[in-house]
C-alpha cells in the first residue's frame, strides 16, 4: 500500500472536496461554546460562592444541592437533561405569557448547558479561593466603611484571584473538552463534524487525529496564556518553591 493512498491529505483541504473548512467551522463552534459556557459558569460561580459563604441557611442548602447533583451525575446525563428540560421550560414559560414557542439555537442551548455544569464547579473553586483570602483584609475593608459591593469589587475579588486561577484554568480546559459531549445531542461542534467527515470519506484515523491535534493545540495555547496570567496574578507573592 503506497503512502499517498494510505493518507489522503487532500481530504483536509479547506475548499469543497476537502473537509478542512467544515472541521475549522466546528472547531470555531466548540471554542464559542467553551468561552460562553465558561463565562456563564464564572458568573454563576461567583454568585454561588458568595451565596454559599455569606447567604442564609436556605440559600446555602439549595446551592449545596446544586453543586452536589452536578458533581455526582455524569456531564453527559446532565447535558441531555438540561438540553431538553431547558428548551422545554423556556417554551412553557413563554407560552404562559402567550408568546409562541421559539426555536432555541443549538449554540445558545449548548452555552446554557455547559454554563450550568461549569457554574457548580466554579462555585466550589471560588469558594475555596475566597476562604483563602486572609479574613483581616476583608475586615479592614469593612472597618473603613466600604459597602458590601465595594468590598467585593475592591478587595475580595482581586485578592482571591491568585488562589482561584489554577482551579479556574483547569475548569477552562474541562470546558473545552466538555463541548465534545454536545456531539451526543447533535450540535455540530468539532467532534460531531469530525465523525460526519470520517463517516463520509471512510478516512477515520485521519480525521480523528486531525481533530485531536486541534483540541491539543487549543489546550497547549491555553496553557501558555494561563502561565502568563498566573505569573501576573502572583506578582508580589513570596515564592514558595
Amino acid at each position: 500500500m503506497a503512502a499517498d493512498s494510505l493518507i489522503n491529505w487532500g481530504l483536509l483541504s479547506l475548499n469543497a472536496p476537502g473537509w478542512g473548512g467544515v472541521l475549522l467551522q466546528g472547531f470555531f463552534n466548540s471554542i464559542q461554546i467553551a468561552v460562553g459556557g465558561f463565562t456563564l459558569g464564572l458568573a454563576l460561580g461567583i454568585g454561588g460562592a458568595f451565596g454559599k459563604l455569606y447567604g442564609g441557611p436556605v440559600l446555602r442548602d439549595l446551592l449545596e444541592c446544586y453543586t452536589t447533583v452536578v458533581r455526582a451525575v455524569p456531564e453527559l446525563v446532565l447535558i441531555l437533561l438540561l438540553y431538553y428540560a431547558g428548551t422545554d421550560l423556556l417554551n412553557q414559560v413563554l407560552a404562559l405569557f402567550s408568546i409562541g414557542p421559539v426555536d432555541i439555537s443549538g449554540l445558545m442551548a449548548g452555552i446554557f448547558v455547559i454554563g450550568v455544569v461549569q457554574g457548580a464547579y466554579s462555585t466550589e473553586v471560588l469558594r475555596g479561593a475566597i476562604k483563602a483570602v486572609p479574613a483581616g483584609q476583608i475586615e479592614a475593608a469593612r472597618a473603613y466603611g466600604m459597602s458590601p459591593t465595594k468590598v467585593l469589587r475592591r478587595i475580595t475579588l482581586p485578592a482571591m484571584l491568585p488562589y482561584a486561577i489554577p482551579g479556574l484554568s483547569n475548569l477552562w480546559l474541562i470546558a473545552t473538552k466538555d463541548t465534545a459531549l454536545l456531539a451526543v445531542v447533535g450540535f455540530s461542534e468539532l467532534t460531531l463534524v469530525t465523525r460526519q467527515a470520517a463517516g463520509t470519506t471512510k478516512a477515520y484515523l485521519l480525521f480523528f487525529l486531525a481533530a485531536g491535534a486541534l483540541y491539543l493545540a487549543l489546550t497547549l495555547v491555553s496553557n501558555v496564556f494561563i502561565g502568563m496570567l498566573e505569573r501576573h496574578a502572583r506578582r508580589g507573592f513570596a515564592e514558595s518553591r
Partner: protein
Amino acid sequence: MTDETTHAVAFTPEDLPTAKSFFVPHRIVMMLVFAAFVVAVAVFMRWDWLPRYLPRLGWGILVSLVMLFSTAILGFLLAVPIGLVQVTGPWFLKLPAKIFCTVIRGTPLLLQLWLLYYGLGSLFPQFPAIRQSFLWPYLREAWPYGVAALTISFAAYEGEVMRGAFAGVPPGELEAAKAYGMGRWAMFRRIWLPRAIHRALPTLNGETVLQLKSTPLVATVTVVDVYAVISKVRQETFLTYEPLLLLALIYMCLTGILVVAFRTFENRIPTRGA
C-alpha cells in the same frame, strides 16, 4: 489536575452530610418540600414502563460498574510506572510519559473513544493477520475499545497524580530505607509506593468518581451500559424526562455508595503525626 480541582469537579467524602446535620428546622421543611416533589414526580409522571425494563437496568448498572472497576484498576497499574518514570526515569522514558499525559489530558475522551472504535476498528479488518488471530472475536465487539479508551484516559490522569505523589514522599524516608540496607525494589515496594498511594488516596478517590462520570460515554459505541438501556427506554416509550431523571438518580446513588465506601476505606488506614 490539582487536588482542589478534583474536589471541585467530583463529589468527595468531605461532602457527605452527617446524620446530625439533618435535624435543623429549615432543613426539615426543605426535606418535606422535596418529599412532596418526589411524590408529585411519582404520581404525575409515567412510570409504568419501569417493571418491564428492570432486569435490563440491573444488567446495565452491572456493566457500568464492571467498566468502572476494570478500567480503574488497569489504569492505576499503568499509572504507577508512568508516574514513577517521570520522577526518576531516564529522559527516554520521561519524555514519552510526559507526552502521553499531555496528549491524553489535552483531548476529549469522546474523541479518543471514537478514534479507537471507528479509527482502529476500521483499520484492523484490513490486516488478514489480525482477522485470523485469536483476538479477532474480541476486536469485533465494542467493549474492548471502551475499556481501552477509559483505561488510557484514567492512566494519563492518574499518572500525573502519581508523579506528584512519588515526588512528594519526603526524601528522609527514602534515605532511612537506604540506610537500613534495603535494595531499590524493596525500598520501592515497602516505602515509596505505599507512602505515595497514601498521599494520593483522596485524589485517587476523586478521580475514580470522575471515572464513573465518564463511563456513560461507552454507550456511544454501542456498549450496553445503564445509559444505553435508558436511551433504549427513551426510544421505545417516547418519554423524555422520566428515564433521564431515573438515570440521574441511579448515578447519584452509585456515586454516593462509592464515596461512602472510600470514606470507610480511608478511615481504616491509620494516620498519625509525629
